[in-house]
């Protein structure tokens, strides 16, 4: 049986709630992770162009390519691979901010994740921990992480670390299937991590069914924990509610495709009881793949295209989410 170990969990201390205005009038940093489980669905394209859109809106943005085995964000941006990569953070202890390379776009820098060592794509827990720690030190308004495909631990950990976990999917069964698998894995790991952090791992584990009693929903796990530890349960509950994924549907071709985003949000809520924010759809657009082939960013090379304006809308929707946030917390 495939299980995530509980013993080598990276301590994912989420950044503490920050005031929206830092001293000196700067905005607080948000980490945005772009994932989706499946490969080839446009995660890198979305990441790169989301970064550009945010930068154009006046935010200082650092793109970080954490697709460690297949980093190519630099190609999406049309620049050569920066000299230093995340590899240096792990092996040499280099500070991550020294690795941020300019992209030719104002306000936008890139940290490359290219790691050529054989096992680099699956860093050990310690290395992951160091990466996570370093990511949180980056000085930017938005740090956009481009995640790799699959549901490997580091991918999920980066997704969970982020203030905004952005899920990209295509209106295709394969993509939807992988996206849900990714979400479930992430949700499960969030539950485990939080349970461990508040010292009720055994309770959560029991509630999850390993000891015969059957629980099916996140809520039931929380409820079971609440029976013996109300404080821990409150933590768990908060943590699960924080698992509020942002959805982007890419390569939308038909009106039916347009409705997929809302439907996914509704179905996720229906069956898992958790909210999801729909950031919008990005039209299937020839200019998208054409610009990729030209190694030019969509927003730069085809600024007037439908896909381009869709990405800009997605960025606006994301920024809008941050506005009321301080009031909510």
């Amino acid at each position, binding site marked *: 049986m495939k299980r995530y170990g509980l013993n080598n969990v990276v301590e994912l201390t989420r950044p503490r709630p920050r005031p929206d205005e830092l001293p000196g009038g700067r905005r607080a940093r948000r980490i945005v992770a772009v994932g989706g489980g499946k490969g080839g669905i446009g995660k890198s394209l979305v990441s790169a162009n989301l970064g550009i859109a945010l930068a154009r809106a006046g935010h200082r943005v650092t793109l970080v390519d954490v697709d460690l085995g297949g980093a190519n964000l630099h190609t999406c941006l049309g620049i050569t691979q920066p000299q230093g990569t995340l590899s240096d953070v792990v092996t040499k202890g280099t500070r991550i901010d020294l690795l941020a390379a300019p992209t030719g776009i104002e306000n936008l820098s890139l940290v490359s994740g290219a790691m050529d060592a054989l096992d680099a794509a699956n860093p050990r827990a310690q290395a992951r921990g160091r990466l996570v720690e370093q990511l949180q030190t980056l000085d930017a308004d938005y740090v956009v992480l481009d995640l790799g495909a699959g549901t490997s631990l580091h991918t999920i950990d980066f997704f969970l670390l982020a203030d905004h976990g952005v899920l990209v999917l295509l209106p295709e069964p394969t993509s939807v299937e992988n996206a849900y698998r990714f979400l479930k894995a992430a949700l499960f790991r969030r539950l485990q991590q939080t349970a461990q952090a508040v010292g009720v791992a055994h309770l959560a584990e029991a509630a999850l069914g390993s000891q015969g009693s059957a629980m099916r929903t*996140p809520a039931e796990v929380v409820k079971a924990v609440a029976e013996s530890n109300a404080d821990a349960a409150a933590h768990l509950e908060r943590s699960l509610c924080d698992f509020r994924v942002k959805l982007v549907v890419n390569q939308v071709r038909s009106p039916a495709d347009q409705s997929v985003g809302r439907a996914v949000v509704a179905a996720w809520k229906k069956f*898992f009881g958790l909210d999801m924010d729909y950031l919008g759809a990005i039209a299937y657009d020839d200019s998208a793949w054409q610009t990729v082939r030209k190694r030019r960013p969509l927003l730069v090379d085809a600024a007037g295209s439908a896909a381009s304006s869709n990405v800009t809308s997605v960025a606006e929707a994301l920024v809008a989410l941050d506005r009321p946030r301080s009031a909510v917390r």
Partner: protein
Amino acid sequence: MTATEEQTLYDVLEVDPASSIDELRAAVERARETYGTQSLAVYALVDEEQLGELRARLDEAEEVLLDPARRASYDRSIGRIGPATLWAEDDEDAAPLPPIEPGPHARAEGLDADDADDADDVEEEEEEAEPPRQHALALEVPAASGLFGRTTGQQTARGAREPARRSAQPEALLSGDWAAAVPGDQATRPVPEAATPVARRERTSAPPPDVPEEIAVPIEEEFPPERTALPPALGLRIRPAPQPPPAEPVFVEPVPPPPAPPPASAAPERPPELPTRPREGKLKLDIPADAEFNGELLRRVRESYGLSLQQVAERTRITRIHLENVEADRYDRLPATVYLRGILVNLARELRLDPARVSKTYLLATQRSHARGS
């Protein structure tokens, strides 16, 4: 999440219970698109069984809620009664049905808990868990205690038995597969009936004056829509401090009713201490004052009200199998006298018969049968 079995049909459609028929129709359409077989959004999200349950509920919602008469009846069955509700006017042309009240299920519960050969009743009861209601888990507030002697204590006792009912789950959760992580077993939970009227009151925010303070208060901390707590679909609410346990439930002997009412005035006046409710339906059957109630007669009375076994089971919280056995005079399958009396009294109240007379004559018949049989 959920708990599609536990939700009202309005919850299933994600609409306000006060929605117009057009709104309901649109909601049905929307739900069909979202959860239908062609929908991408549910592909690989949960297993087919769970989807099947949801789709069955959608069928039910369409059938019931889009039919004004059935909707009115359904609204009553989920406790959507009360003067200050918008939908009241929709009901005018609906056939008058007896309003639901928190059913006197104290005895039925005691029966389930204690009856030794009750194993199949559990299953039965699971089937009967509808119309399921949302918020049932959340409303762990003292029920309207006093009314039929029901208290939270009884509900808790019932809750304590729940784990035993759940079938063992696959270990899918531990493999990170949350496909199995969908509520569904909540469907098997009997819902304390008092939860429903309370929940409805909460929505209509017009608590009738008879709601005690302590009921109204905890409910008002409804979830804000955003991230402060798990949403209602999870049917969960973490309460910071447990309610003090109410007094031990007391098995209240049925108040001896007045002498058997003449059949002509089928909506008899009752002594004030006997929990009564406005009776709308008229008993059309002509029952002699000295009638001996057997299963056949009880069935005829029930049918004269147009009530199904299922409806009676839901209202009284008597398991359907017991009701069937009562109506079929299957004395050997009925529970011990002390429980059977409770069943009969509750059933009689539901059918607006004289509880004492029903239980006395029926029990007499069972005793005669036992005497003959042994």
